[in-house]
């Protein structure tokens, strides 16, 4: 039976620890336990100022996660629409999706953040966090669009033909046959984008959104402990990213196991 095996590599998120890749797996362990060890050491050996710093940050962590989840939700919706547009036979839909992807990918995220924040601010007054979420989601939707397109294309044409021959139309075929299968190919790179997006949310600290980085800057500007504060911030980002990449790795393994049964 013909079978297309496609692995989509989008390498801007984090290295996902694969149990088959011993080097990476060991590296994950070293990083993870090393990070925890350093955090614990700093808190115990130098409670002043590190305990104060870490007490100051939880609000920021919550905001970072809020922005991340909301943006990824928006990006998934936009990505699905853009991905469908890219493979659509409708010329205008296709052109609109392609142009969206082309334009968004050609502008740095930070510039987009400023642009959407101030452009949006000129037209309608939206809360800072909403502006940040719209900008992040809009940008990542373009990258997600390419992921969706590749995932949909990875499904054998025979599946579409079988579905059409039963009497399903194109959109029913997409909904009942193609997307449920494409999801498994799409999920790993989507997870990767999720981690990449979480890291990029640090950019929203510029838009007066109190994420981890912003909270850290507030702390540092009062205490003048720049080195200590940014050390703790880097460690916390690293810890979050490592935990997420491990979760993703487990999900991926479960998915490929499902495929193999």
């Amino acid at each position, binding site marked *: 039976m013909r079978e297309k095996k496609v692995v989509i590599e989008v390498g801007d998120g984090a290295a996902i620890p694969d149990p088959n890749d011993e080097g990476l797996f060991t590296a994950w362990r070293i990083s993870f336990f090393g990070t925890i060890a350093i955090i614990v050491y700093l808190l115990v050996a130098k409670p002043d100022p590190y305990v104060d710093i870490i007490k100051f940050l939880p609000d920021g962590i919550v905001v970072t996660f809020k922005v991340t989840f909301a943006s990824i939700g928006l990006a998934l919706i936009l990505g699905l629409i853009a991905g469908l547009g890219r493979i659509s036979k409708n010329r205008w839909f296709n052109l609109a999706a392609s142009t969206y992807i082309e334009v968004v990918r050609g502008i740095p995220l930070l510039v987009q953040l400023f642009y959407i924040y101030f452009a949006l601010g000129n037209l309608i007054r939206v809360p800072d966090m909403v502006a940040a979420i719209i900008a992040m989601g809009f940008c990542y939707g373009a990258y997600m669009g390419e992921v969706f397109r590749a995932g949909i294309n990875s499904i054998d044409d025979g599946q579409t033909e079988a579905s059409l021959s*039963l009497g399903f139309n194109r959109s029913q075929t997409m909904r009942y046959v193609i997307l449920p299968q494409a999801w498994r190919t799409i999920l790993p790179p989507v997870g990767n984008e999720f981690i990449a997006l979480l890291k990029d949310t640090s950019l929203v600290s510029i838009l007066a959104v109190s994420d981890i980085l912003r909270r850290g800057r507030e702390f540092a500007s009062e205490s003048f402990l720049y080195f200590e504060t940014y050390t703790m911030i880097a460690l916390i980002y690293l810890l979050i990213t490592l935990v997420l990449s491990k979760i993703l790795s487990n999900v991926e393994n479960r998915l490929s196991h499902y495929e193999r049964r």
Partner: protein
Amino acid sequence: MNAVNPIITITNVVKYFGSFRALDDVSLTVEPGQKVVVLGPSGSGKSTLLRTINQLEEISSGSIVIDGQEISDPKNDINRIREEVGMVFQSFNLFRHKTVLENLTLAPIKLKKEPVKEAEKRAMELLEKVGMADKAASFPVQLSGGQQQRVAIARALAMTPKIMLFDEPTSALDPEMIGEVLEVMVTLAREGMTMVVVTHEMGFAREVGDKVVFMDEGKIIEIAPPDQFFDHPENERTRKFLEQIL
């Protein structure tokens, strides 16, 4: 000839792939209950012809009328016509994310709005018929090629089509699995299903076919009853083809 109205009427069909003429002025009629076997060397256009019948390939010119409906007429809903025309593929194309039972029930539930219980009951009957009832809960990847193809036939039958198209249904199978699939097809033929079969199985063509269509280079070269076709082929190219394969 009798006066039965054909269920498929193909008239002067031409199909281009780019500048390649895959079908060259092809005409053919199939009457209800007839079994038509299409033979020919690879690249002769036989699969393309089959795929134009349910418009998986759109024709460049000519006409195809199924059960009174011109399929290229935008006024006719091609999706409803396709419900009447089941198709079995060389590579099975079972839905990989669905169980065997779900493969059979998906279309009847979503398209014909059959109640789930009823669809499942009928699906089980069909699986019984193709000898696959014990695998109802399995996923396609767990089945052999022959088993997948029998499920694929049952899936097409679940929509109670009037016509069944078979596109080289045994070509992707290991030799020991060909028999089990042909057996199901023979049973179906005996029950009176209208069938158009593209195949290399000469035994099947002879045993089941009402008429044999021989194609080469996008043209229909010869149409004849199987006995006449195999024992007294009229055309030179037909004779050469038969010499090569028999």
